Each structure stands twice: as C-alpha cells, then as structure tokens.
C-alpha cells in the first residue's frame, strides 16, 4: 500500500473498502460459470484481491452475470439485483449479455441485458479466461475511483424506465416496485 492509497483510505474509506472487498453473488447463468471455480480456487486465487463468493445477495456488492440470460433467469436476476444493498456493481460476463452473442436468434434469451438492469462493465469473450476476469475487476476499480461505476445510481434515477422495460417483457412482474415513482 503506497502513501497515495493511504490518503485515499482516510478520505473515503467506504469507497476504498468497496473496491478491495468484493463479495460476489454469481448467477450460474450459462457457460460463464465454468470459469468461476478456477478463478476462485488455487490456480488464480481471487481471494487475494478480496473477492469471495457469498451465498445471499444481501451480503454482496458485486453481481457477476456469467453468460447468456434466458427470460426465466432474468426475472431471478432482477429480483437478486434489487435485493442487494447499495452501493452495488454489476459485471456481465461473455459476449451474450452484450448483444445476444451466438444466441441472437434464440426465442428464450434476451439480447441485451442493459435494457433491464444497469451494467457497470462487460468482460468480452466466449468464454473470458480467468485472467480476463481479473483485468475486468481492475477496470472496475478504476471506474469506482472515478465514480463512473454508477449503475445503482442510474437504476435509482431511471427506475421508471427500467421498470417499464421489465414490464414490457414480462407483462406481469409479480413484485412491487423497489422505489416510489415507478410508473411513467
């Protein structure tokens, strides 16, 4: 830890702690999950960056969406995202959440994830290698430093638009809005 960092710690401990303690809740949405075990175990050891998986969204601050998202999973993803306490960050994994990837014509997978929940960063590739995951995490650090990882703020600000998109897809969501002022 250099002197620069120490001053940052004193200035904004919450932000710095958020950077170095990612408690990950990951959804096994598709292929991405196969590279998660190698990156959290011996070979790549994500724990040295403070990244550990947790069991419930309540304890997490990083949401990894590991691959394509089918409509059935999307409901669960939105639920999980709304359960996480702020500040929270979302990183989508692989090319499928960006634009549908190779499932561009599948009737059951959505094409772009950021229409439904805010995404702070994408890690491209099919599959991204564990190294790519760590590079993605370091990029996320930079974004947090620059206050650009503001997905949760956008979600709060534009909630009615997100909610409208979700309702357009699902017709009936089955849970009350997270914030007030949810209808257009």
């Amino acid at each position, binding site marked *: 830890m250099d002197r620069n960092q120490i001053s940052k710690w004193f200035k904004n401990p919450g932000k710095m702690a958020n950077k170095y303690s990612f408690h990950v809740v990951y959804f096994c949405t598709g292929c991405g999950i196969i590279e998660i075990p190698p990156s959290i175990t011996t070979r790549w050891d994500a724990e040295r960056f403070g990244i550990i998986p947790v069991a419930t969204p309540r304890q997490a601050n990083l949401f990894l969406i590991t691959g394509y998202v089918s*409509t*059935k999973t999307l*409901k669960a993803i939105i639920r999980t995202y709304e359960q996480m306490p702020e500040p929270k960050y979302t990183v989508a994994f692989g090319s499928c959440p960006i634009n*549908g990837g190779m499932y*561009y*014509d*599948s*009737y*059951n997978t*959505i*094409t*772009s994830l*950021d*229409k439904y929940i805010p995404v702070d960063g994408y890690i491209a590739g099919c599959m991204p290698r564990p190294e790519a995951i760590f590079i993605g995490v370091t990029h996320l650090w930079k974004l947090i430093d620059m206050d650009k990882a503001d997905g949760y703020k*956008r979600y709060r600000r*534009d909630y009615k*638009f*997100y909610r*409208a*998109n979700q309702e*357009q*897809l699902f017709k009936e969501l089955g849970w009350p809005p997270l914030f007030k002022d949810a209808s*257009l």
Partner: protein
Amino acid sequence: MEELKKKLLAYFTDLTIQIHDDYRMCINTQKETVVSLLNYLKNMGYEHFALLSCIDWIDKGEFELIYILSAYMEVCDKYQEKEQGIIIIKARISRDDAKVISVINVFENAEPYERELHEMFGIKFEGHPRLTPLMLEREYEIPPFRKDFDTLKYVDNTFGKIPSIEERKANYERT
C-alpha cells in the same frame, strides 16, 4: 433381431419393420398400437426407454413421434450378443389434432419427455398427470419447436421492440 421381427409380426398386425445393418430396428406403426407395442418390448427385455422425440413434417401436416428403446446389457442376456440393438418406433399423428395416449404407465421416465413435447410442439398426452410447463415461462402463440415458428421474427418482435433506456428516456421527455 430377425427372430424378434418374426415374433412382432406374428403378434401385431399393423407394423412395417426394417432392420438396418448397425443393429437398429425401425418399426412404423399406428398411434393406437404404441402403448401395447412398448409393453410387449419391455417384457422382451428392452427396458431402457432412451428417448421420446417428435418431428414436425409440416409439408404433410403430420407429427412423427419417435420412441427409442434399448436394452440394459445384463438384463438382455437372454438374447445373443449381437441382439442388443436399438429399436426405433415411429407413429404419425395429425398436426391439427395432436393427441396421443401417454406412455408413462409403461415407462416412468417418459414423463419429462412428454411434458417437454407438450410444451414445445403442443402435443396433448392423454393421461399425463401434470402437463405443466417445464422449461418455458413465457407463452408463445405457436409452440416454438414447430417448423412454422420463426425464431428471428419472434426475437425482433419481442426483444428487439424493447427500447434502450436512453431511447425510452428521450421518448418520455419528448412527450
């Protein structure tokens, strides 16, 4: 296999049987016969129900149901070594009135297959206890595995029509 063919032809009337060189036996039959045929074959040692599938022959307006049976090796000892083939049973049903009798009384593990076919092709299996959706949660006008379901068009109409947040915001501010 030839032996089994003779037995089957003697027992059932409306069968056409071909034997391929790789121990595959192909039986064409009517949908009414399927249950009794499966029962008969099960007693003959073909106890492994491998697959229940369906093909949509849209030009002829028919669905073809495929039942694939094979034998567990040790169970089938009473047959000669070369007799452990695979039996493919085919039955055609009308596409407009897709109804067939369920076979879960014969083979327990046909249950999820039938649920899936009900969902993907819209075939009704009579006597199935829970024909609830298995994989899908959304409702589709045409069951998605039918040949006249155009996936690309569907994607464009549902996922493509949803605007991005920026677009929606701009629209909202304009109005």
